[in-house]
């Protein structure tokens, strides 16, 4: 089924490291994508115009124009082609910045290529052509629940909720990736930037904290649903100030 979803979808892979593109491009082609490769930011901007990809995989650290600048320019022109950033460091600020500047998702190097394909498919499923991704909205709402991202504050109706910084980051990521099965490992990576053995339990603890604060029943979830054996999914319908 997945093969059908991605059949013929156009993908632009941008990385200056040929060792990576040489191995990754064939892998992505076998996964059903039509792949083109660009080796730096300038070439990437040209290819986006000529190839018109459905999704761009963009390395951050590149000569001439780096990935972040490519992202900024595209978004500046009002081009909302889905972009997945390949980040180098696990720093939380860098990851938050990636989403704020308009990336749809990011993945830390080194990554499992299967994970990249899973992210690409999720991003393509979420995409509404020509529209800004949720990830770039400053204010997000889901029914009564409001998220003010720049101020990092949450309201339920008129009441402000108190969340720890990590719980906020977790909720923010779920909000910007609704209706997507998010594995514990992925959430761990989002909130902590690196995984550790007891970490998946830490995710459960945080989700429980979120549910308590949001008054969300796990058996009848309005917001966070447990997907047995897989992870969590944000089931609320999210709107952003787009």
């Amino acid at each position, binding site marked *: 089924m997945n093969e059908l979803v991605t059949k013929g979808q156009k993908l632009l892979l941008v990385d200056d490291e040929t060792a990576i593109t040489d191995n990754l491009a064939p892998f992505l082609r076998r996964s059903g994508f039509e792949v083109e490769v660009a080796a730096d930011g300038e070439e990437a901007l040209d290819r986006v115009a000529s190839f018109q990809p459905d999704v761009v995989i963009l390395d951050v650290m590149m000569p001439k124009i780096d990935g972040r600048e490519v992202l900024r320019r595209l978004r500046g022109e009002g081009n909302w082609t889905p972009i997945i950033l390949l980040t180098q*460091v*696990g720093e939380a600020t860098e990851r938050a910045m990636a989403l704020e500047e308009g990336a749809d998702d990011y993945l830390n190097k*080194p990554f499992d290529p299967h994970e990249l394909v899973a992210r690409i498919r999720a991003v393509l499923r979420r995409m509404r052509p020509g529209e800004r991704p949720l990830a770039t909205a400053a204010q997000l709402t889901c029914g009564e629940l409001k998220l003010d991202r720049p101020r990092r504050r949450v309201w339920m109706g008129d009441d402000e909720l108190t969340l720890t910084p990590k719980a906020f980051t977790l909720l923010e990521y779920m909000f910007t990736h609704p209706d997507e099965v998010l594995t514990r490992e992925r959430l761990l990576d989002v909130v902590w930037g*690196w995984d*550790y*053995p007891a970490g998946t*339990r*830490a995710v459960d603890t945080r989700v429980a904290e979120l549910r308590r604060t949001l008054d969300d029943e796990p058996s009848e979830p309005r917001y966070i649903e447990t997907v047995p054996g897989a992870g969590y999914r944000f089931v609320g319908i999210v709107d952003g100030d787009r």
Partner: protein
Amino acid sequence: MSRLKFIGFVFKVLLPLGLGIAGSVILERVIEENLFLHSWMKISTIPWLLGLLCSLGVIGSRRIRSWLKARDEKLKAEIQVGMVEERRRFLRRLDHEMKNPLTAIRAGLANMAESSRQETRSEALDSVNVQVLRLSNLVSDLRKLADLETRQLECISVDVAALLEETLTAAQDLPDASQRQITLTVPQAPWPLSHIAGDWDLLSLAVYNLLDNAVKFTESDDMIEVRAFEDGSSVEIEVAETGQGIPQEDLPHVFEELYRGENARVVPGSGLGLALVRAIVERHNGQVSVRSRAGQGTVFTIRLPVGDVTGLQQQVTDL
């Protein structure tokens, strides 16, 4: 010393002496009778004696200052040499850590390229995969160490007893953990353990790493005891085991990055687990230590200050 400074110095030495002598002469003139403070000391002796003491003080403090400065410089130079040596040692160990998996990968790839037997190829592929994961773990632990230096701690009030319980449950999933007798002892009387201020997840990682080591360096039916105490100002967490012990000469080095003691060479791991423990504990203003006896076992201790949340937050914002 410049000429101007020298003149200043001479002036500073001579001025109190001169003033003292002048004072004595004046007193001698003003007080007609010979007033004695003591059987051997005239009142008029006091000013010049004081002046002399001041002058000697000026000379002495100068000596002490230059001595202190020299010592400081020597110390700085020693630290510099130490840092250079530490960096060299780290690179040497890193080189060593990477050499082995890379050699295995190259051999595996050669097997894959040259053998036509499907079985050999898939075996080689598996082994290459394992070695790649090993390198990934090494890189990921290195990143954690670097990240820990700058990372903002999420500072909450941590219930150590609950933290130990949670971490112990997580450690039960370790391979071989079921064959160890793992126990947890936390005081309840006369009052439960104090909370400490810190980052729950990081502290849990530190304890987990100690438990991971304890399981790795023990055998079936060995005992692992996790204990916590409090002495009013700190909470102490101990992870003790009845394993093979760490040789005395290795003990001072076990918290160093990528250090592998005699017993640790054959045990898989990134070589950064204890370095991470130390980094986490030190970010919390705590200390780590280790005691061991050959053939009897080892006990690692984490000591963390009891405290409120604000203190640590202050320190974090200062960083």
